[in-house]
């Protein structure tokens, strides 16, 4: 049987007609005429008649790919919930073919010139430094043609990708807006539509930064623009999972209008993309009783390690001893697992000992952002690692925390 093929079958003595959907070792799933899928044990399912299969459309990504034109907004899809859709016949999730239905619902869509390029189709947990380079280069190419850029991205690691592009674009002529959705775009209740609507408006701003466009609250009435380097996914599933840590959002979109909420960098004259990343960086979450050898194994041979310490930036004395051992080869940086607030290693003796051991405090830089930043600096300015990690380059450090 082929997927989508019509079959007559019997089950426990009765006969039915359905469409073959899928099978596993034990079970077979068919769709009944009512639209319901039913799943039956393979051995209780008897085929009576197979109808000739209908011709299937060919699924091809390349066919629907289109190049970005000029002076518009270029949407780059990379996968993730927002760029995927269920196949109603099979229930399988596939990349969206016709992106246009996603933004058909945007207010005053006619005033925008939209292009769409499908550059990747992956789950964001599999995105890595190599992909960041791809995204950044595609964004640069689009920008060169005068387009602002929207990147559809899975929400899982969107904050990491946005940080990466924030650093790599030392100068940019147009905004780069990441957006995604927490409810998939094949659902009527999907947040994708409003998030995209917001992202299109944000992409039309005078802005030379990388941002993230996601729901403000649970209601479908506002989208916020968050700074790429200061944002964190703080909820596994809710629409308003993304927030800027310790600072207001950059802008809000509501009822067709954008309002600026905090500082937004103006576009530069030129595009400067530094597309080298050194992946030899670690991120370690400290916990009570963490073994020195574990810490050692993780740090050994790394060029830089971001530690998520407790409180103001502490680890146990056992870990301190390991750091002392390795700190000549490996640069250690301290962020806090508290997430909110500044690291300050002058207050307690542990902090002062860590400072003495060469650990660099990162203020209120998010650990995840710091990890990405270290890759960028090691790739481009390896000699200035310590100094630049402490320097606020792309809003990753909030000077004034209220």
């Amino acid at each position: 049987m082929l997927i989508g093929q019509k079959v007559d079958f019997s089950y426990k003595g009765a006969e039915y007609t359905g469409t073959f959907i899928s099978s596993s070792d034990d079970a077979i799933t068919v769709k009944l005429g009512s639209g319901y899928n039913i799943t039956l044990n393979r051995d209780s399912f008897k085929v009576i008649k197979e109808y000739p299969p209908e011709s299937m459309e060919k699924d091809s990504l390349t066919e629907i790919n289109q190049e970005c034109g000029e002076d518009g907004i270029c949407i780059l899809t990379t996968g993730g919930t927002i760029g995927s859709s269920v196949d109603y016949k099979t229930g399988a999730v596939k990349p969206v073919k016709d992106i246009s239905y996603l933004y058909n619902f945007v207010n005053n869509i006619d005033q925008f010139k939209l292009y769409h390029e499908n550059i990747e189709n992956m789950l964001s947990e599999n995105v890595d430094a190599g992909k960041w380079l791809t995204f950044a280069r595609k964004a640069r190419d689009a920008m060169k043609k005068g387009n602002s850029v929207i990147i559809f991205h899975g929400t899982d690691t969107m904050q990491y990708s946005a940080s990466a592009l924030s650093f790599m674009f030392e100068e940019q002529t147009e905004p780069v807006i990441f957006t995604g959705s927490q409810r998939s775009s094949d659902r009527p209740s999907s947040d994708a539509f409003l998030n995209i609507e917001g992202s299109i408006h944000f992409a039309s701003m005078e802005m030379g930064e990388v941002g993230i466009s996601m729901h403000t609250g649970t209601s479908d009435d506002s989208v916020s623009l968050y700074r790429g380097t200061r944002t964190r996914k703080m909820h596994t599933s809710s629409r308003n999972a993304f927030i800027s840590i310790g600072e207001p959002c950059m802008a809000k979109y509501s009822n067709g209008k954008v309002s600026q909420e905090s500082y937004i960098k103006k576009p530069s004259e030129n595009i400067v993309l530094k597309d080298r990343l050194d992946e030899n960086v670690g991120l370690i979450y400290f916990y009570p009783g963490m073994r020195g050898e574990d810490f050692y194994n993780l740090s050994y041979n790394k060029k830089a390690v971001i530690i998520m310490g407790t409180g103001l930036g502490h680890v146990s004395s056992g870990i301190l001893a390991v750091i002392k051992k390795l700190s000549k080869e490996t640069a250690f940086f301290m962020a806090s697992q508290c997430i909110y607030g500044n690291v300050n290693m002058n207050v307690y003796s542990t902090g002062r000992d860590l400072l003495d051991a060469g650990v660099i405090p990162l203020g209120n830089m998010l650990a995840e952002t710091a990890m990405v930043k270290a890759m960028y600096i090691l790739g481009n300015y390896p000699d200035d690692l310590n100094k630049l990690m402490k320097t606020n380059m792309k809003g990753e450090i909030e000077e004034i925390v209220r």
Partner: protein
Amino acid sequence: MKIGLEIHFQLKGNKLFCSCSTEGTESGSAFQRKLTPVMGEMGMVDSAVKYENIRNREFLYRVSSNSCLVEKDEEPPHPVNTEALNTAIAISEALNCKILDYASFMRKIVIDGSNTSGFQRTGIIGMDGYIQTSGGPVRISTITLEEDACRKISEKHGRAEYSLDRLGIPLIEISTEPDIADPEHALETAKAIGHFVMSMNNFRGEVDSIRQDVNFSMGFGRVEIKGVSKLSFIKDTLDYEIKRQESLKEISDLFHGKPPEIGDFIDITDIFNNTGSSMIKKAITSGKSVMCARLPGCNHLMKYGNYRLGRELADVAKNMGIGGLMHSDEFPAYGLTGEELSQIYSAARKMDEDAVIVVIADRDSTESLSPLLKERMNKIIKLDLAETRAATTNGETRYLRPLAGKERMYPETDIPLIRITEDILENIKSMVPKSLDEIKKDLIKKYKLSSVEAESIINNNLLSLFMSLSDGFKNPSLLSRILLQVMPEFEKKRGTKLTQEEIRDILGVSISGGNIYRRDDGIKSIIGIARSRGWDRNTLELALSLYILNAIPVSELEKRPELVPLNEAEIRGIINELSEEGQLNEKNLIVMFRKKTDHSFDPRLVMRIFTEMKKSDKL
């Protein structure tokens, strides 16, 4: 005639896909959402304009105390509620269905806002069963387990307001094939299915916990009648619908299947410049126009005898938000004068055989109404009556919308397949409800009840009450008498019904605080006292009467002198008294005796003593 039923019933306990309770109150906070008809999911409505319209509808959801992120559509569903699943399997077994090897859930797209997700989660549990009825077996096509929708609070200005309290309550849907022969049979089938439903321990049993849809066809197209709220209305509703379709058939015949052409609407607002009808005056002041149109040959079809063509058209107007559509069969009415009427008729160029309809609305609405009226008239005269109708609360039906397109469904990928194992099937065996026949047999066999008693208990919905009290009550036939005769008599005297809970409390072996008279907080039960005192039936019934009708606390019943049954000497004395007072015979003895004393007595003893006294000529 083909009739099919869809019976939905709620389960109590936890919701279907989260740990929230099925019961809750509103908590005050609210949020707002929109729904987007996703690609290809709109059925017939396809144009971008329509999308836009729907996209602009706003839904406001009031958060209830029994809701969490799942109801807010902010979290994927949790694993399915096992108890609900088991109940669905048990019902399926009871209705002789084939249980599927796996429970798998689908998303049924619903974009009226009644589901925050934009779809309802639903899965088939059983297929292809049947239920025995006097008219032979009625086939059950499917039994599904699904989540109930939000409760609608209001709808205005393009914004619908819902409460989350009902969303996610487990709902079992039992659908029959159209095997039902007539309204009477439909009622019987519904009752039979209802029996199984109500036998489940976790049947929710609140107002609205059962909702019935009826599918009906008598050759003029299938009509879906939504939301018959009570069992007893099934027959009324079907009777109404049959009469309605029959009358439309007659009308169609009158026109030989050729629809009359409804005239264009004519603005006659000017006629009412000085009208005495305050309704019309008010409407005109608020900027509305009065318009009329001629319906050729429709005189006395609008509302006359069995004919109700007026209502058929008025339903269309009502669905558009136009309150009233008046017509000539009603006139004179609404405070219209003869003068005004003749002006209307003259404006509409009404001939004797014509009807005239009058609409008061803004001109635009009336203009968009016009083609819809014509379309409906066409369908009626061509006897294409297939549509979705709503059951009203008085047993009628009214036009709701065209039949929906095929439901769009796709798999709920967030919920893994659940294998219905042999273990599960074994475990739910004890839950499978018995059929009425089996239960009746059980009652007769186990409790030695008469067939009539057993049926009465079943038909009066007293089965679970009887079963729950039968353990404490050593005498099932006394219990049956109390439930079937004594209590109803008290209720009549009292003027109010007792709830089953109250009856359970009164007759239960231990009274646990829940007592109909609050000042009585003793924990002794009436039955307990009866047993310890060895009360006979009469004394017990008198005690119940004192408690229920005279509000004597349980704690005082023991001390009441009336509840010491009269001894032979006392009986003899009273009979003597009665006899002195006048004519006394076997027929009036007990009635007269009861009038003479407040005390409990054994009527058979009184009778025996009277007979003895009479025999021995002591009277």
